[in-house]
């Protein structure tokens, strides 16, 4: 018996597919916008991309499988501050740079955070698991500092 998916499910899949193409466009633009960041990624392969929002700090994670039989390797590829989010006030733990959307900081996080796994989802999950605590800790320290100054 075949099951016809509900329209809402189909709509979500269409949006997810369109979003995936948008993320692919953002990723490949590194080739001419920030080629030094692209140096950390294989030049060829299947790519799977994920946007992670941590308190308004958006990280664009890229997992690439250079060869069909190899592991997927995941790294952050871009960073953006969402509208209304509070910019980082200091460097995040382990990285000696104040976060920004400039290539220097992107390079620092690309170098500092990476993961590999047999599947794209596992590689992206592992990368997110490494990145999220560092960012949440930085946000927590910033908020404590803001509260302390306000007293």
């Amino acid at each position: 018996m075949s099951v016809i998916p509900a329209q809402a499910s189909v709509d979500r899949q269409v949006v997810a597919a369109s979003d995936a193409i948008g993320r692919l466009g953002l990723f490949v633009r590194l080739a001419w916008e920030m080629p030094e960041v692209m140096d950390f990624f294989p030049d060829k392969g299947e790519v799977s991309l994920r946007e992670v929002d941590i308190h308004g700090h958006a990280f664009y994670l890229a997992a690439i499988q250079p060869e069909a039989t190899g592991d997927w390797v995941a790294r952050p590829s871009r960073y953006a501050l969402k509208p209304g989010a509070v910019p980082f006030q200091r460097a995040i733990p382990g990285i000696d740079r104040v976060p920004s959307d400039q290539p220097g900081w992107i390079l620092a996080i690309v170098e500092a955070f990476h993961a590999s796994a047999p599947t794209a989802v596992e590689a992206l999950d592992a990368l997110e698991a490494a990145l999220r605590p560092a960012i949440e800790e930085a946000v927590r320290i910033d908020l404590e500092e803001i509260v302390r100054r306000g007293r």
Partner: protein
Amino acid sequence: MPGRRETAYDALLPGHGEFVRVRISTAGGEVVAFTVQDETLVGDRYVPVVRYDAQHGLPHRDKLNRSGDVVDKVWLPMPNVDALNLGIEDIRTNWQRYKVAFLGGAR
């Protein structure tokens, strides 16, 4: 060409049996050649549905049929990088429409 770099990335779209493939050649921060191609699964193989590239010296968009023949060509008199961005945005927005037209076309 010195400093020329070739990148080739394929992304499988979630849940749709659809691949988007991007090939870019850059040199000195310029896009010197590119291809953006949307492919759909027909039977057991992926076949191109719509393609943006800069072959023949000028960027253009090709729509294809199931035999791989170009059934529509639109020239894009603009820099490669603009045509590449346009191609990605057009496929992001219209991939479903292209697919429906492709699958509804002559076999």
